[in-house]
């Protein structure tokens, strides 16, 4: 499983922390509030019951009508009174068997002459039963409904829960926001790194922007310096090699041309030797050119509009191949936005490859976003396919006429040019036999 991102993790931690904290606070405050409220309510109820009990106590002397006596009490809607007197239960409303609401334990307690109170549930609501023994064997009970209080507390719990959820969501949001700020310098690093990857070697980070990231900034800038120094050194090396190899080649080329001109006056063996030298000088020259091309292939492409059909035609013409090999797929745009020199070289190398190893090209196709070269050869054997685009890999020459074989770098250069254009080179089978090289060049 992929690990969640840093921002997600930090936000989740913030959210969980906020939730835990707010849940604690909520729970404690709910408990405090509810206990206080209940205790307050109970105290009030007990006080009221004692007051009523005094009234009843006074009324029970003589021969009272107990019902009237109970009726005379001034009670609200949420109180219910009962009187147990001489084994009988009396209430304000006739026939209500409310004594069942009074727990037996409280009755027993009251029978011993002790006052007491107990919380019960009645009709699904919390209620408080207060027992106060009055004169004789009588016990006065009051049942006080706590439903209202319970509903208030329910609302409070709801509000507190909502607050807890909001606080944890707020925590997550803060985490997200904070990480964005905390990660902003890293975003700058990422941007700078991708700038360097794209070839902008002058990209550096401002060492004063983020003091906390001083070390990162310093290492990053050091790395960038080192990279740019190394690249410069490589480029200088390529330029030096180029100069050092090309100068003697110039002498060789000129001297060979002087010799070649006098070939007729040389004896047969010398003339053959001069021919060999001339061929090898030419090959050495292409090798140097190809090596330098590869050494520089990481440089960014220089894109400009190019008439690709014209370019392909020229590639064929330069090699003395018939122009009717060129096929343009209908719907192909005329102008492509490519590095003309490199595409021309890549296509030229593919055509040369077909001539050298594929029995000659049978078609050069230009289609939307791709160039294809089909050859008449036997196709590429499976074991060579994975290495065919490597450097210094040569196929068995199907046709060895002309001046020696290639440098073994042609297809590697094609692959590099394709990659420089964000494209690729693919080896396919031509229907009917032979190989088909397809150079894919996406439009920017």
């Amino acid at each position, binding site marked *: 499983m992929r690990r969640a991102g840093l921002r997600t993790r930090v936000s989740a931690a913030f959210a969980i922390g906020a939730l835990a904290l707010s849940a604690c606070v909520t729970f404690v405050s709910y408990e405090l509030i509810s206990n206080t409220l209940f205790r307050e309510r109970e105290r009030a109820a007990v006080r009221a019951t004692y007051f009523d009990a005094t009234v009843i106590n006074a009324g029970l002397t003589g021969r009272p009508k107990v019902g009237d006596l109970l009726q005379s009490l001034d009670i609200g809607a949420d109180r219910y009174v009962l009187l147990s007197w001489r084994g009988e239960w009396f209430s304000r409303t006739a026939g209500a068997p409310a004594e069942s609401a009074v727990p037996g334990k409280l009755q027993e307690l009251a029978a011993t002459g002790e006052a007491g109170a107990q919380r019960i549930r009645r009709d699904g609501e919390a209620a408080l039963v207060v027992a106060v023994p009055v004169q004789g064997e009588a016990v006065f009970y009051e049942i006080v409904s706590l439903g209202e209080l319970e509903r208030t507390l329910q609302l409070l719990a709801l509000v507190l829960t909502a607050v807890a959820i909001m606080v944890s969501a707020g925590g997550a949001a803060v985490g997200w926001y904070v990480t964005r700020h905390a990660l902003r310098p890293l975003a700058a690093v990422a941007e700078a790194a991708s700038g360097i990857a794209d070839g902008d070697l002058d990209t550096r980070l401002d060492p004063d922007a983020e003091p906390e990231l001083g070390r990162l900034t310093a290492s990053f800038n050091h790395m960038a310096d080192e990279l740019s120094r190394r690249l410069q050194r490589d480029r200088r090396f390529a*330029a030096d090699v*180029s*100069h050092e190899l*090309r*100068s*003697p*080649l*110039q*002498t*060789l*080329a*000129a*001297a060979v*041309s*002087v010799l070649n*001109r006098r070939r007729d006056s040389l004896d047969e063996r010398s003339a053959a030797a001069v021919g060999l030298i001339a061929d090898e000088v030419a090959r050495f*020259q292409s090798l140097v050119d190809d090596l*330098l091309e590869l050494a520089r292939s990481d440089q960014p492409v220089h894109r*400009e*509009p190019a008439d690709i059909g014209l370019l392909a035609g*020229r590639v064929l013409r*330069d090699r003395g191949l018939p122009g009717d090999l060129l096929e343009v797929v209908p719907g192909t745009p005329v*102008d492509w936005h490519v590095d003309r020199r490199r595409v021309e070289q890549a296509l030229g190398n593919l055509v040369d490859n077909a001539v050298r190893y594929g029995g000659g090209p049978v078609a050069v196709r230009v289609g939307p976003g791709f160039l294809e070269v089909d050859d008449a050869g036997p196709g590429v054997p499976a074991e060579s396919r994975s290495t065919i685009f490597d450097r210094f890999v040569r196929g068995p020459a199907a046709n060895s006429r002309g001046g020696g074989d290639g440098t073994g770098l042609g297809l590697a250069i094609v692959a590099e040019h394709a990659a420089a254009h964000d494209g690729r080179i693919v080896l396919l089978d031509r229907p009917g036999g032979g190989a088909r090289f397809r150079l894919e060049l996406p439009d920017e």
Partner: protein
Amino acid sequence: MSAVLLIEDDDRIRLSLAMALEDEGYVTHAVATAEEGLELQRKQPADAVLVDLMLPGMDGFECIRQLRRTDDVPVIVVSARDDTHDIVAGLEAGADDYVVKPVAVKELAARLRALRRRGRAAQAATPAMTVLTFGDLEIRPEAGEVRLHGEPVAVTRTEFRLLCELAEHPGQVLSRQQLLSRVWEYEIGDERLVDVHVGRLRHKIEDNTGRPRHLVTVRGLGYKLQP
């Protein structure tokens, strides 16, 4: 017989190139330094100059610049350096063409012939017949003359050929490849050659090179000359 001045510090290259050029029918004056070359060109002007860029003492760029002060002789840079920077700098100094070592002698001879043809076309100075006028710019192809606001402008032979090519197709866009094949006789060539020569021409015939009035670039197509 036409004479070629070869300025090349590498003894072996100088010797072999001189021999090979003589085989191609040129009289070759070969020297090792820019100073000697300039001196020799003053005393005994050659029809074309081949110059290396990396020379001891005065380098090739400076040599071309000094040569250009007094001389419109065709100059070809023959250098082992092939990065864009050097090519453009060499052309901007005033060279007409740039070839990278190792160059085949036949190719070099072909380049020299193309440049000399250009030179001769411009020099075939029968009295001024045609005047091509583009606003305040006047071109007399037969006389080899360019005038801006009536004042003569010193242009090299290649610049002149380029200007004439554009002037003969007024208002028509010529692509870089077309100009390369018509002016330099290149089948395929380096388009920077055209761009740098256009830049050099603009310095001479435009009042504001940043916003050219006569020699304008048509993006993606090429160049055209307009009044």
